[in-house]
């Protein structure tokens, strides 16, 4: 059994050092990276997927993939971008698999009266009908738009950072966020 790093020496190390050590197979350093990023990664997955168990699956896949592929990361300083890229890809893949199982899609303009897929942690924390309706509107956005919007509006990433995470141009990021906002305004008509 490895010795847990929680609260220990590794917990104070920077990402670059931790990544180098994980590339050498250091479990304690990997545990610190998991502790450092798991809440944000799982949060992003939860908001993208709106299903707690699917979100945990996506987050688990994200970190196990990171563990297996970390040696391919040539620039340890880009770990943060890389881990959110893995999480984004895991979410988009899950959503595409879901979509393949469905035959109908929803139009963001036909959202009035849309009901969410069940209680989420956000709903438990904030019992607000407006927030629930916003979640339903977000749920109906194309996944790529929703992802860019969440990274910008909730996680506070810059256009450039989102471009790096999603591997698209800054202009494309702006376009996605703009279209997401347009759809949100339409879907939230009457709620402001």
């Amino acid at each position, binding site marked *: 059994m490895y010795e847990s790093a929680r609260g220990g020496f590794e917990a104070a190390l920077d990402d670059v050092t931790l990544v180098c050590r994980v590339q050498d197979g250091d479990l304690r350093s990997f545990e610190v990276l998991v*502790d450092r990023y798991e809440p944000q990664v799982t949060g992003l997955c939860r908001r993208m997927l709106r299903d707690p168990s699917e979100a945990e699956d996506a987050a688990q896949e994200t970190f196990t993939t990171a563990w297996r592929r970390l040696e391919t990361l040539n620039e340890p300083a880009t770990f943060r971008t890389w881990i959110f890229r893995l999480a984004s890809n895991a979410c988009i893949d899950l959503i595409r698999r879901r979509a393949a199982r469905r035959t109908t899609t929803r139009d963001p303009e036909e959202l009035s009266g849309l009901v969410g897929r069940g209680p989420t942690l956000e709903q438990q924390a904030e019992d607000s009908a407006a927030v629930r309706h916003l979640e339903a509107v977000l749920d109906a956005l194309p996944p790529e738009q929703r992802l860019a919007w969440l990274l910008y509006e*909730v996680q506070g990433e810059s256009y450039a950072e989102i471009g790096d995470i999603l591997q698209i141009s800054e202009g494309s990021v702006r376009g996605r966020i703009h279209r997401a906002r347009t759809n949100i305004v339409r879907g939230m008509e009457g709620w402001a």
Partner: protein
Amino acid sequence: MSDRSSRRDPDLSADGEFDELIDELVETQLAENYDRLEGILEDYRSAARESDQASHGLRRRIMEIAEIEAARGPTVRLRTRSRQEFGIAAAAVRAVIRDAVDAMDGLVARRVSVWVDAEAGSSRAVDLRVSFAMRRGMALAGFEHDLRQRIARELEESVGIGLGRLELVLEDLEEGTGEHDRRG
């Protein structure tokens, strides 16, 4: 279907000013409507932040998978004096070396490469390449000898093997490295 171009003033549409004006108005309206949602968006953000807490079950599952896979890592093949072969997990050797470097004030280990000089034949010793970060302002010459001795000692005491060649690589200078709680 509405066709915006059918309502254009020919003089304006000629130079595109009408389109630009309409686009600008639409954008302004969109921005205003979006701004009006700010209260709801802030509620959503607050709820999101509150719910972003670590999941201990998830963390445990991730670490269990990593631990199982780490145990299947590469081994370093060595020979005893009686020419019996044995293997030692490279990760175990690296951990010993990392701890030895971390124990030096102002140093933090980064990467440890381990290999055996096949031509040496015998060998109860490993060659190492150790990269580390150092607190800015320290002098390499001031600790290099101690670091080499410490690594050799830890290797011998912890896993019973000797140190062959040791290459030290200063990879980075950091502010404040070494101010953390040391394991000793």
